[in-house]
């Protein structure tokens, strides 16, 4: 056991002594954090932003005006455009269109249409918020219509239906608009449907993604290169002449790589926390509230990545092969594993494939902790999956990375 730890510590020292380690372990991941902090701002909290919601009123009737009032609310900037103005305006994100005849159709008991149009360049989260706002407005509008119709002069309304709203008493119109202005009697609560989880986005996606990507890249590239070099130099074979079992040597090498991965993760955690707390970067993201689940998850993930590194090292013949292919494999694992974008937005086949990748399970665990706030129990299943994969990679590695006994 002491020899095993001795090998692991020695390997870690040699990895850290490499001049390039400063770049790959520290500068590059932090560069990514800075980059994401710039492009994502302080996160995806919709309450802290204003969603532009321009409305083109092609109807002009009092019910259309009332509907526009229902759309207004905190965090939504509603600007009304006449049909003439709309024809000369380019809406960059999204806009709502109230069709001509909206008021008459409703008064006639018909189905009126309100159209939400999104541009391709529009922010998906903001579009989603606008859509929810539109549904809320529809429900509140219908509620007010029912209240108004129930108390209205039935003769006047029937006449108006027959002769159009121009004949409707202005007092009746005013009464409806007053109802709209009152606090709504209908409460609309909006939540994400389906599994009850939002799609991870902003810092909640990018910071864990950076960690998952850099851990797997560091371990795979550093590990494969070092082990392949050891094969070429003969030091691995020389270790096999020492009074150690073959599996002890492999375990030592795996532990060394696991420690390397954990060092990478620790660097990111500590650096991110310091940068956030000292307000050097504008992020609303802290790891420390999640440490109880984070530590076991990262240990399992790093162990799995290390076992994969040992397995791959057995396949590579030269350090050039190790360097190039480990990069490629690391990038593929990061992309398909959900480190670059949420698994939730990927095609079904990619999500199924993700079930076989350590990066995907690490991301699931991290999202469970950070985005979904499920607590430390969220990492139990990911940890089991990662340990199972680690065992498989290690078993394969013990066959591919032959150090003796041919």
């Amino acid at each position, binding site marked *: 056991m*002491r*020899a095993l730890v*001795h*090998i692991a510590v*020695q390997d870690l020292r*040699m990895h850290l*002594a*490499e001049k390039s380690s400063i770049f790959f372990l520290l500068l590059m991941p932090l560069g990514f954090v800075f980059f994401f902090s710039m492009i994502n701002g302080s996160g995806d909290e919709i309450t802290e932003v204003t969603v532009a919601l321009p409305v083109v009123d092609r109807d002009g009737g009092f019910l259309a005006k009332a509907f526009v009032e229902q759309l207004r609310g905190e965090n939504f900037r509603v600007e009304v455009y006449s049909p003439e103005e709309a024809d000369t305006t380019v809406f960059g994100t999204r806009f709502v269109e109230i069709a001509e005849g909206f008021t008459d159709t409703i008064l006639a008991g018909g189905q009126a249409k309100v159209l939400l149009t999104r541009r391709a360049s529009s922010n998906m989260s903001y579009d989603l918020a606008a859509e929810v706002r539109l549904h809320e407005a529809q429900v509140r509008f219908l509620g007010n219509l029912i209240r108004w119709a129930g108390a209205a002069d039935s003769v006047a309304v029937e006449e108006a239906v027959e002769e159009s709203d121009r004949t409707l008493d202005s007092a009746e119109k005013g009464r409806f608009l007053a109802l709209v202005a009152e606090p709504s009697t209908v409460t609309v609560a909006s939540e994400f449907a389906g599994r009850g989880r939002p799609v991870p986005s902003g810092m909640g996606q990018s910071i864990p993604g950076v960690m998952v990507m850099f851990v797997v890249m560091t371990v795979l590239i550093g590990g494969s290169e070092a082990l392949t070099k050891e094969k070429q*130099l*003969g*030091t691995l*074979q*020389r*270790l*096999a*002449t*020492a*009074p*150690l*079992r073959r599996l002890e040597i492999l375990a030592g090498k795996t532990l060394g790589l696991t420690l390397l991965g954990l060092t990478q993760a620790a660097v990111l955690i500590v650096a991110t926390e310091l940068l956030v707390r000292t307000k050097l970067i504008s992020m609303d993201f802290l790891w420390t509230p999640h440490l109880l689940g984070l530590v076991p998850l990262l240990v399992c993930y790093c162990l799995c990545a290390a076992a994969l590194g040992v397995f791959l090292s057995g396949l590579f013949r030269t350090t050039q092969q190790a360097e190039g292919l480990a990069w490629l494999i690391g990038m593929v694992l990061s992309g398909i594993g959900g480190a670059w974008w949420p698994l939730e937005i990927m095609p079904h086949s990619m999500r199924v494939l993700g079930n076989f990748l350590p990066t995907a399970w690490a991301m699931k665990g991290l999202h469970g902790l950070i985005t979904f706030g499920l607590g430390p129990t969220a990492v139990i299943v990911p940890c089991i999956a990662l340990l199972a994969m680690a065992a498989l990679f290690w078993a394969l590695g013990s066959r591919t990375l032959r150090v*003796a*006994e*041919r």
Partner: protein
Amino acid sequence: MLRVEHLTKSFGELIAVDGLSFTAEAGKIFGLLGPNGAGKTTTISMICGLLRPSSGSVHVDGIDLGADPIAVKRRLGVVPQEIAIYEDLSAVENLRFWGGIYGLRGAALRSRCEELLRLVGLADRSTEPVRVFSGGMKRRLNLAMGLVHGPKLVLLDEPTAGIDPQARLNILQVVRDIVAEGTTVLYTTHYLEEAEHLCDELAIMDHGKILAQGSISELKAQLGDGSLLTLQGDFDPVQPEKVSAIGGLRTLEWSAERARFMVERGASVGTVLEDLYGSGLHLRDVQIKEPNLEDLFLKLTGRELRD
């Protein structure tokens, strides 16, 4: 200290080592001499547990390698033919790492490292990265790494291959020093002079087999106790039977341009040469010398060791 019995290693159709048996006495140097491809490194690899023998057994200090490989490996120090050191570490860091593998710690490890660095002449370069070392310095460190834990049996696989004479002398002196302290050494080489001057006992190998073994004097005795006569000339018209009738002369080699004979003790070299001239040989060159291991190898295999 080391007993090897009927050791065989096959790689498919190829038999790399074929039924090797020998014994290395404690505190002695046992040499394996043979050309490249003779099976020396394969033999070393089986003794140190890197290769599993196809058949046969290895006992070190009375312990069967197959039954308790870890106990055997504790007694072994292995110096591989290829230099196997961590190039990014310094000499002392390499030694500390290797000592740590064998359980050495603290002051004992430090003093052992200092002692070995002095022994191999690297004390003043001990903290420099090994990658800046010359080939000879790396070879010396390679040797020291195999000695760090004070093994009872040291396996040296061509430790002087490709180095300068000064480094070679240093390595040979280190080998003599550790043997003087009671360590047993199994030494493989294809350098005749090294084998002849260093080894107490020697086995001559070729194609995975031991052709002859014993002390240097015993091996030389196999050639006979006389002088070696080497002739170069044009021998085509003369039948070898013609010269075989000459008294006191034993034919070792006969070809169109070269012939080698052993002139037996008691026979006059001058008389033998006169008889050879008389038999009609056309000679261009004549050499007379005491026989050495090269001649024995030639006698055993029909070719020179350097071929």
